[in-house]
């Protein structure tokens, strides 16, 4: 008899059916949702892996019969349970409020415990009171944990950004004018009353607009103008459905200008990767969160703060954007194959069906998922929730991203298993909207298992 690889136990586990904990929970694999706050994910899940199917068989028999369902209807159970989770809104909003209170309490301490903050944040950060903005800044390491030095740090970083802007965003005309004004103090402005031949003067350093030299500021300016044009085009196309970014209002214009400035300065400071299409998508949620901060001071300086956080966030992912590294061990190909391995580890049946039977090469869908940090797959509010988890997870955003992607695949497994190449590709390239908290929960489960 061919032993079909069973679906991992936790997919069948009871906590998906209701938020309260049934009595026989102690025998099953993971604690109920309310235990999350005590932090730490269980180590009991060691049994659920590709090993001993007989052991898993036994565990299946332990929970009451009501919960043993045959495999084919597994997906329906998942759907039903997710509906039920969705409907228990009253419970979750109470949880929300208490979570918000806990976060606020954590943030108001003089020295913030980053580990605590991470755990609280991984459950999802509420949208109110600029909590997300401050939390993200702490998680990305922009704000130090010691609250007392916040204002000093912030003013230092902000003035640094101001210098960057002055140095890198001025055009060569202004630069030459400033150089001259500083070199020769106010020599009377050529107001030669009457007539006369205008005096010719030497040009400084052979700098003239048509210069072809590599060190010429004019030449660099014209070379950069290509990149600036591309940045401009991409920024205009960012999130066209959101008022914050698109439209003709002065507010949207200012936001787009800020995005452009950040990207241009980043491109100039990093000649190695310059600007690659897609960076604007990663920048947009960061800027949105920081700019929407109710704290006036933060909102006004959102551009500077976003720049440094963007650099920090991208430092984890910059290898994805470098074309030369595509085939290397840190490049995007290897990341995609790791996702594939992760899927194989957790759900071999699905993996086999996807990659071997229907030959859906993960590069077709995962490339966009990974390089753009899932910003193109979900709507904006969902993106913010997913990023809460990505940024707060202590293993780091890269690993967490893979787990979320794996969870995304597993959630639609029934449709994938039933589909052929075209259907699956279509499904994965326009991922259906789902309950994001559910998705993140599943991703968390994967985290707890893959560490063992």
């Amino acid at each position: 008899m061919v032993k079909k690889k069973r679906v991992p136990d936790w997919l069948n586990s009871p906590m998906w059916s209701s938020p309260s904990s049934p009595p026989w929970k102690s025998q099953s694999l993971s604690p109920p949702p309310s235990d999350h706050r005590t932090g730490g994910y269980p180590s009991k899940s060691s049994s659920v892996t590709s090993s001993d199917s007989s052991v898993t068989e036994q565990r299946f028999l332990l929970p009451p019969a009501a919960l043993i369902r045959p495999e084919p209807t597994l997906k329906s159970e998942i759907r039903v349970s997710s509906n039920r989770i969705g409907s228990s809104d009253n419970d979750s909003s109470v949880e929300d409020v208490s979570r918000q209170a806990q976060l606020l309490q954590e943030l108001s301490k003089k020295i913030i415990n980053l580990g605590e903050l991470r755990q609280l944040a991984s459950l999802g950060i509420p949208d109110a009171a600029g909590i997300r903005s401050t939390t993200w800044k702490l998680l990305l390491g922009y704000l130090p944990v010691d609250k007392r030095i916040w204002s000093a740090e912030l003013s230092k970083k902000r003035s640094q950004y101001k210098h960057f802007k002055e140095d890198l965003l001025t055009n060569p005309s202004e630069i030459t004018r400033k150089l001259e004004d500083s070199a020769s103090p106010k020599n009377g402005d050529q107001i030669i009353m009457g007539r006369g031949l205008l005096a010719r003067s030497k040009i400084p350093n052979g700098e003239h607009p048509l210069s072809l030299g590599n060190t010429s500021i004019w030449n660099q300016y014209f070379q950069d103008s290509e990149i600036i044009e591309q940045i401009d085009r991409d920024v205009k196309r960012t999130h066209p459905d959101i008022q914050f970014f698109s439209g003709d209002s002065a507010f949207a214009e200012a936001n787009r200008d800020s995005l452009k400035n950040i990207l241009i300065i980043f491109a100039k400071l990093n000649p190695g990767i310059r600007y690659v299409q897609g960076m604007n998508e990663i920048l947009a949620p960061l800027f949105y969160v920081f700019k929407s901060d109710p704290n006036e001071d933060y909102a006004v300086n959102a551009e500077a703060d976003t720049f440094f956080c963007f650099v920090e966030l991208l430092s984890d992912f910059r290898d994805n954007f470098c074309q030369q590294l595509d085939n290397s061990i840190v490049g995007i190909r290897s990341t995609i194959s790791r996702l594939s391995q992760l899927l194989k580890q957790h759900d071999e049946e699905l993996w086999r069906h996807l990659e071997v039977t229907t030959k859906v090469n993960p590069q077709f869908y995962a490339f966009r998922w990974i390089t753009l940090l899932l910003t193109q797959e979900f709507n904006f509010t969902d993106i913010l929730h997913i990023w809460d988890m990505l940024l707060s997870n202590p293993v780091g955003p890269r690993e967490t991203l893979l787990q979320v992607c794996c969870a995304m695949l597993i959630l639609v497994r029934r449709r994938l298993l039933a589909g052929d190449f075209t259907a699956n590709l279509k499904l994965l390239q326009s991922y259906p909207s789902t309950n994001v908290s559910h998705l993140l929960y599943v991703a968390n489960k994967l985290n707890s298992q893959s560490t063992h």
Partner: protein
Amino acid sequence: MVLVLAIGDLHIPHRAADLPAKFKSMLVPGKIQHIICTGNLCIKEVHDYLKSLCPSLHITRGEYDEDSRYPETKTITIGQFKLGLCHGHQVVPWGDLDSLAMLQRQLDVDILVSGHTHQFKAYKHEAGVVINPGSATGAYSSITYDVNPSFVLMDIDGLRVVVYVYELIDGEVKVDKIDFKKTSTPAI
């Protein structure tokens, strides 16, 4: 920061075959926003070449131009400056600064660009500035000896103009610049 190229008196193909190679290598599309040409190109191919450098091309008619549809004079407003354009063979005596000043007052412009003498000149008088970009090919002229190929690039930035003069002397490109500011016009 608007870059305006002032060029003229090429006399291609009658007196010169082409622009000097060193000039040609510097004049690439994408950098210049406007071209003002004093005239005497003389043929359509030169017109097309200049058009490829920049779509905004203004030309006035020189006496040897084959296209008779170019106007005699033209005025253009770029930024805060009004520029006037005329070939210069109409203004007699040729190259005389007083007569050019008269033309400038007639056109009511801040900068008058005219050619015909094949010699670079930048001159200031009460009514404004006269610039002669010279001949870009160094074509023969009956009124000037030892013609050096030259043209002018103006960087107009607010009320300030930086005029870069490009000359080919002894096979080398020499660049100089001239700075001047426009005093804001007093209210009448």
